[in-house]
């Protein structure tokens, strides 16, 4: 299982050995890709196939007594499991708000910070920092920011004479809290990718439009936004996939409970709980398969859509 082991077979010698058959000459290449391949096969590809088999068993991780049950797990999941459908709804809710909001904010900041603004690196860094800092360390702080009684956010809302929601203590407000955290955490990625997209737009196009008398608003919607469409589609894709996987924020924000009335149950968190809180490996396998198919469907739709729409006229 040691990934570095195959290097010891001296690939350099094998490669120069130059035996006649092509396969013989290939040993060097095989030895070089072997460490990476062992890991990718053992821990990504094989599990991705195996999980389909796993989903056909009732398999308690503690007792470790797999029993073949056919499609019973799927029957229960799709027809009788309200919590699963709750997790699908909450995941869609999270995605439907966090993805557009995060992308719009990232685009706004990218347009603001694209110019040769003194201090722009500092401002970009401020927005990007949450993306690279640990989930747990930042969420434990956000939990106190959201505290309904003593939190700084409700202090601010109170000072503005706005209602003060129960945030993480309320079934209606826990998802908005996690969504706000998600937007805070993720906008930096959208910002830097939009900045890279903006850098690829030839400056003379916008300049020409300006010379023709178009205002900044018009230049943006007529030139910049259409030319950014490949970036937007790329971002939409990675944001959708990323937000469908949201798990750790739910775990930490809700103290591993799923929140009041399971209001923050997401697919990823439900999968985690079934597998590692209740040890239902087979059932978690069925959830994994459903989740996998969902992700593949998004990918498929995205690819079809992108190949048609990504080109501007």
């Amino acid at each position, binding site marked *: 299982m040691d990934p570095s082991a195959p290097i010891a077979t001296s690939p350099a010698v094998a490669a120069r050995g130059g035996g006649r058959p092509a396969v013989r000459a290939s040993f060097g290449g095989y030895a070089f890709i072997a*460490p990476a391949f062992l890991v990718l096969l053992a821990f990504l590809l094989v599990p991705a196939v195996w999980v389909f088999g796993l989903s056909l068993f009732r398999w308690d991780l503690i007792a470790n007594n797999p029993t073949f049950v056919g499609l019973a797990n799927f029957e229960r999941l799709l027809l009788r499991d309200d919590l699963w459908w709750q997790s699908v709804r909450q995941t869609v809710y999270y995605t439907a708000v966090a993805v557009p909001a995060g992308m719009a904010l990232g685009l706004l900041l990218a347009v603001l910070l694209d110019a040769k603004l003194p201090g722009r690196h500092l401002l970009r860094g401020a927005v990007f920092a949450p993306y690279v800092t640990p989930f747990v360390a930042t969420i434990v702080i956000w939990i106190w920011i959201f505290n309904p009684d003593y939190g700084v956010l409700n202090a601010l809302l109170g000072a503005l004479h706005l209602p003060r929601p129960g945030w993480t203590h309320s079934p209606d407000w826990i998802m908005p809290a996690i969504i706000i955290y998600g937007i805070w955490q993720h906008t930096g990625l959208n910002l830097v990718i939009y900045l890279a997209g903006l850098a690829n737009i030839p400056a003379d196009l916008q300049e020409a439009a300006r010379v023709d008398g178009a205002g900044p608003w018009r230049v943006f919607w007529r030139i910049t936004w259409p030319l950014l469409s490949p970036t937007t589609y790329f971002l939409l894709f990675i944001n959708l996939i990323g937000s469908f996987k949201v798990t750790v924020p739910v775990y930490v924000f809700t103290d591993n409970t799923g929140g009041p009335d399971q209001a923050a149950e997401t697919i990823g968190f439900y999968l985690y709980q079934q597998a590692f809180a209740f040890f239902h490996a087979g059932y978690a396998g069925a959830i994994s398969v459903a989740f996998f198919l969902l992700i593949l469907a998004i990918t498929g739709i995205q690819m079809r859509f992108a190949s048609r729409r990504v080109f501007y006229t």
Partner: protein
Amino acid sequence: MSRRRAGLALRYLLAVPLAAAFLFPFYWMLVLSLNRPDAILEFPPRLWPQWQIQNYVEVWRFVNWPGLFANTVLTTAGRVLLVLVTSTLAGYAFASMRFVGKAAAFGLVLAVYMVPTEVTLVPNYITLSHLGWLDSYQAQFVPLAASVFGIFLMRQYFLTLPKDLWEAAQLDGCGHLRYLWSIAAPLARPALVTIALLQFIEGWNAFLWPLIVTSTDRVRPLQVGLAAFSFTDSTRPELLAAGAFMTTLPILIVFLIAQRQLVGGIASTGIRG
């Protein structure tokens, strides 16, 4: 000219408050960590730190930070090193070596990219329990010791190296491995730095997988220990914040030093690691 200046002012007017809002939680982390006990129960909350520096000492009584810190360093270093080795070797093979089935093998690598790691959690857990690796260091980084992005980036880099370089080295009796070690890999340093940075961040921040495969403080990383502390002791938020700040600081330092490489690396992939 004055119109341009007005535009600049408008940009600042929008961008500075937004950026400040993004920074605020970090500031708040610092403020909370320097609060006196019970300050958290004041409402409205104090906006300035009380400079209770001893929180950073007291928090050591509750959690074995040096142990957790060492575990994080060890598993992160293991991950970074292994990914660098596997990416360099495979990237080089795909760029510069000839072997039967190369295109198919590369296609397979790219296909693996589509697999969400979430679906591998349960099978990998079962595999590790069969290997007897649960609650170990290697469980936390060996399954993550290869990166599709790393392989891809190294391949792209090696493809740009001039062919004569390899031919000259060959004339000197240099094999692939020696050429790679002494000539090609050093030339690919920017790519190696990018991969190392991304893997460092991923390794340092890793939470879900270590949470699943570890069960004791002996091998647990900082983030898992911090979450456990947060769940069991919610009465001392100033200590929790001090712990959070200590676990975030190394990332912030690396971020400040290497912001450009890091942003460039992430922007080119859209993913961490």
